[in-house]
């Protein structure tokens, strides 16, 4: 996991108030949102993530399909932030 991915993971844990420990085998390629999310994040959490990313990184995720792709995994989120910063 690179430094931005770690930073975003910490942000996700903070804003979604995730109290369970991150699984030891968690990988940034894994599904971020939905029933298969190892962090247990749902679409309501996604709202908070989109909002916080915009506030902290000044990057707007502004269409439904873009957000599905961007929030597919921690890696895709990091790639999106990196390419728009």
């Amino acid at each position, binding site marked *: 996991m690179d430094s931005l991915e770690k930073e975003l993971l910490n942000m996700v844990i903070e804003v979604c108030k995730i109290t369970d420990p991150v699984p030891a085998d968690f990988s940034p390629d894994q599904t971020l949102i939905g029933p298969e999310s190892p962090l247990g994040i749902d679409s309501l959490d*996604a709202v908070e993530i*989109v909002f916080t990313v915009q506030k902290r990184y000044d990057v707007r995720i502004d*269409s439904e399909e873009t*957000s599905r792709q961007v929030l597919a995994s921690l890696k895709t989120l990091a790639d999106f932030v990196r390419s728009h910063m």
Partner: protein
Amino acid sequence: MEIPFTHRQSAHCETGTTSNLLNHYGVPVSEAMVFGIGAGLFFGYLPFIKLNNLPLTTFRSATGAIFKRTTRELAIKVETQRFRDPEKAMVALDSKLDQGIPVGIQTGAYWLPYFPPAFRFHFNMHNSIVIAKRDDEYLISDPVFPEPVLCSAHHLKLARFAKGTLAPKGKMYVFREVPQHVDLMQPIKKGIKVLTNAMLKNPVPLLGVRGIRYLAGQLEKWPRKFGKDQALLYLGQVVRMQEEIGTGGAGFRFIFAAFLQEAASTLEDNRFQAYSERMTQIGDHWREFAVVAARNCKGRAGENDSYAVMARILIECADQEELLYQDLANSI
């Protein structure tokens, strides 16, 4: 026969399908332009219509209306067919493909196997374009996917004849006649006029800007009226319809902002650039509402995340939208 068709991914199926079909026939319009000409933006809070036993809130015009308005305003002649017999529907589809004609179809998204399980839901108004048949599979330009997708004839037939609300009944549509030259100026103005009338002059108080204010007033009362748990269910419904996977209502505001930006260029009127920026800020404000609502639903609301705060944000959104629509109405 494989039709040379340029697939472009888009935010929403109806606007994406319309834009992709228009581009195929040499009318270069973006998804945002279709959304604007089709007067796609809207607001309605309809407590008497229940979805999963909870009131319906809509942030866009009725499904199908954008395609209808856009093609009408651009003088496109559309041939639409519905069927009782699934076999005849598939034969008719094959016949159009054999003639090299891309075919728009309405389907039930739940039955399309290329949708990931998490996104497979019972929505019978999903639009896409069939562009080829390969043995027993169809190649589909589904605008919400990054690339064209394959679907078996069996699954496509199931999707075209999905049962339930707004059943597609095999609906398929093709462009029969497309003008050689399309001038966007009047359709843009007409789209803005339809939108501003719908949002400002709607006689039904549940619709348009008044509807946003009505929802604000109701929402503030929900905890007292229904109790905390039911209020959260109502709130969850609003925010899911607005911001499912992070967009929705605000997302539609952002698409409309992109339309206004393009309109500034087509109309050669810089005021529309400023309107676009204002609409983006309004979308951001809707998103603030969604975040506070989501915090409540997830049980992590802070001191500043009350129902009164949410109602205030909604009133501010209504006020800002009202001013913008008035300015837009006065500028066309």
